[in-house]
């Protein structure tokens, strides 16, 4: 099993060809057909058509575009028999045609959706790429929807995605490198970056990380993102997954590096700082005052979501002194029936909310709505009436659940969901002291993280005042000319930082 692994191991597609497997293509038709059948395990959808006198056409049925095959290849062949591969190549009226004499190349071509044309007596074969991958039509982004902005999302087709990007960035500087990952799946992964903006060192790092992956299979980009993260053990993601081509392109233009995986509708952008996870592409499209407000709102939501329930638990378990008098009576009266200590009560309710969320994510959309009813009315009201939770806690939990949805990145939303639990437990054991322990631990943890070697807490640490203009606030566009230093871009400024004022005419 070793040799196969080594041969197919993640090497760039067009770089050094595998040197060991130099088996050439047989001149005889029968031998050639047999060798192809052997190599592909003779699948039932392998079609072999002979065109007398000397041409054989081999392809896999489900991978090629039937229309092109009929109109552009079969039609051409019938007119021109008896040619050499070179003439045949010139004769075919399709764009991607190559000639090879290596069997391995031929196999690679056929499983990628090419048609092999073999001419009796020649040790070469013509590979005509007429692949047609099944893919859905472009649709609106569902996970990262926004009101103002483009309404198109990536889909599962690599070529569609790249064409989307090329439409946003019409520039020869857009670099595109293809890498195959996965010994068994041979998934095409594309590395995209802007030449002249992206730092060479970072591009090398990503290239290196992708190349050194020795994976069996790569199905989705989320897996890849986790594998090439600086610290895969951390709960915080260090690379952004997005389905929005505009966000992706905006990243590239900031000097970031993008990775797209074939068959996955989420693209990876790196390096990414912690604060950027709380920015939405829509912020760029709104007026700066509104964008700033929304960003601050999200930040507040983050803190609210993470610390509100622990605060409740700590105050009710240990620090009754801090409860304002106005809350004292309603709080203690609503707690009076509850038989559990606050920590248990809070954990119970948090878990119920998580159950509801998980259930509504798994259920078919049609009955998903019922979950809302079950959650809202049945569990919420009944739990309070049955006296297992207090209604004030119910409000707090609902509020923090709501706040956790405001994170524009689903990945970060999940983090918020999770880190609440240990903090609630700490608060339930040691009150404010426990909460503060968690705050310090999270702070140190975040400081220790890096994204492609760049500081994760940028632009706050190391502090860069100019970039803070576009962080948790967003200053007017003329003031945010600087590219984030996080990307170590070769070109520091997006435009002339002088304020642009339209002349009055």
């Amino acid at each position, binding site marked *: 099993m070793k040799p196969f692994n080594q041969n197919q191991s993640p090497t760039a597609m067009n770089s050094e060809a595998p040197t060991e497997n130099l088996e050439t293509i047989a001149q005889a038709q029968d031998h050639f057909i047999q060798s192809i059948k052997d190599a592909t395990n003779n699948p039932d959808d392998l079609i072999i058509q002979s065109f007398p006198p000397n041409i054989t056409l081999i392809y896999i049925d489900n991978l090629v575009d039937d229309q092109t095959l009929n109109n552009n290849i079969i039609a051409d062949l019938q007119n021109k028999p008896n040619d050499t591969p070179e003439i045949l190549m010139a004769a075919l009226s399709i764009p991607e045609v190559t000639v090879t004499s290596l069997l391995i190349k031929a196999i690679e071509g056929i499983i990628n959706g090419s048609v092999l044309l073999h001419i009796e007596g020649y040790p070469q074969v013509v590979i005509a790429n007429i692949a047609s991958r099944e893919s859905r039509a472009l649709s609106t982004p569902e996970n990262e929807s926004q009101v103002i902005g483009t309404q198109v999302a990536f889909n599962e087709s690599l070529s569609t995605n790249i064409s989307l990007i090329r439409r946003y960035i019409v520039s020869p500087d857009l670099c595109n490198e293809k890498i195959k990952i996965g010994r068994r799946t041979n998934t095409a992964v594309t590395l995209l970056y802007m030449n002249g903006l992206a730092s060479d060192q970072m591009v090398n790092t990503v290239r290196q990380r992708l190349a050194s992956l020795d994976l069996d299979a790569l199905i989705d980009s989320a897996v890849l993102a986790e594998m090439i993260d600086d610290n895969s*053990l951390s709960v915080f993601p260090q690379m952004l997954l997005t389905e929005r081509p505009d966000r992706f392109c905006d990243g590239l233009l900031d000097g970031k590096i993008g990775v797209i995986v074939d068959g996955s509708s989420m693209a990876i952008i790196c390096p990414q700082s912690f604060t950027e996870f709380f920015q939405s592409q829509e912020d760029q499209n709104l007026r700066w005052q509104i964008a700033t407000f929304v960003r601050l709102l999200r930040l507040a939501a983050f803190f609210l979501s993470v610390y509100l329930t622990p605060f409740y638990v700590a*105050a*009710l*378990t*240990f*620090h*009754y*002194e801090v*409860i304002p*008098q106005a809350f*004292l*009576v309603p*709080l*203690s*009266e609503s*707690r*009076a*029936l*509850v038989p559990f*200590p*606050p920590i248990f009560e809070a954990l119970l309710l948090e878990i119920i909310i998580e159950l509801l969320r998980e259930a509504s994510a798994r259920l078919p959309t049609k009955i998903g709505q019922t979950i809302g009813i079950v959650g809202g009315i049945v569990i919420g009201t009944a739990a309070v009436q049955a006296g297992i939770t207090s209604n004030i806690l119910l409000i707090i939990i609902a509020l923090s659940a709501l706040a956790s949805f405001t994170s524009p990145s689903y990945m970060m939303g999940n983090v918020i969901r999770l880190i609440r639990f240990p903090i609630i437990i700490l608060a339930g*054991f*040691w*009150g404010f002291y426990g909460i503060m322990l968690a705050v310090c631990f999270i702070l140190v943890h975040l400081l220790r993280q890096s994204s492609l070697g760049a500081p994760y807490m940028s632009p706050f640490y190391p502090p860069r005042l100019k970039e803070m203009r576009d962080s948790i606030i967003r200053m007017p566009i003329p003031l945010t000319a600087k590219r984030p230093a996080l990307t170590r871009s070769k070109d520091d400024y997006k435009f002339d930082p002088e304020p642009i004022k339209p002349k009055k005419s």
Partner: protein
Amino acid sequence: MNKLKYFYSPLLALVLLYGCVETNILDKVGLTTLVGYDVGTEKKIAATVVIREVNPEFQSNVEVLTTENDTSKGNRIEANHQLSKKVVVGQMRVVLFGEELAKEGLRYFIDTNLENASVSNGIYMAVVEDRVAPLLEYEYENIEDIGQHIFRLIEQNIEQEYMISSTLHEVARDYYSVGKDVAMPIIKRDKELVKLSGVALFKDGKMVSRLPATDSFYVKIVRDTFKAGLYETILHHEDLPSALQKITTDDMTVAFDAIHSKRKVTLVNAANPEFDLNVKIKARILETYPDINQGDPKSVAALEKAIQNKLAKELEKVIAQSQKVESDIFGFGEIYRGSVRHAQLTKEKWHEMYKDMKVNIHVDFVVLRNGVFE
């Protein structure tokens, strides 16, 4: 490094199991909202506590308990013995003292409350006419929670500047200050209500005299800056300037709303303490009886003059009374200490000097405006 990370988790779990702390779960504690102290038998302290308890019937009931013991903590233990919930003091809002106890001295109670970290420095302190226990134990018709009620009563009056402020911090500050004495509101039961009935004057933490509640206005304007508050006074006919005497043959009632007052005390003579007290009040006239023409500058000036004289007279009276009992609740001593270098002032020394202190009072009263209808 990775090995270390795995090492963390069992360590944390271990710590988690050991480090449990005593809890004070809100619905499992009885919250003391008010404590009243009286003189008990045989040098003991009698404490009356108002405790708010919550029971599962969604009702909070208020318990009033009286216990007698040697220390205030001993009283807490005793109260604990009588209740189903742990008694805690972190939500205490008011401390009351019986008159007899106040006359014996409050030092112990100030110290014990300052020492306890869970007692806020913002709690109010007041003296009760006669004993505390009957005031708290009386079943009022309309007052459900007597602790809450007294707190609101005092808080509201202090916020509206009707009464001098007497938080634990201020009491302790004045108590430990060499040039100032403690003053507290006095409350009493009046049929079905509780009311503020005066201001208690202290000397060295011992109550020595009292002023009627109406005089708290004068205490306030000399003690600190007075921002807003209604005041009503009667101008006697013989004191009125001639301009006003023409209008009426009777006494004149004036009510005003002091928008802003400023006091300035300067020491003019250090050897035999003599102070200049300048009080500047800007006010809004709300009511005069009989009516005077407030559009007329002359009569307004006359009115201002009349009020000035009246206020000066009243201030003089209040200060004289405090001098008589050697209780410097206005803080003249602090001014003295701040103005005289190396005064080496002590409490005794100052009280001695205070008795013979002279104060020249100048009141400057300005009518800013009256209502919207002249």
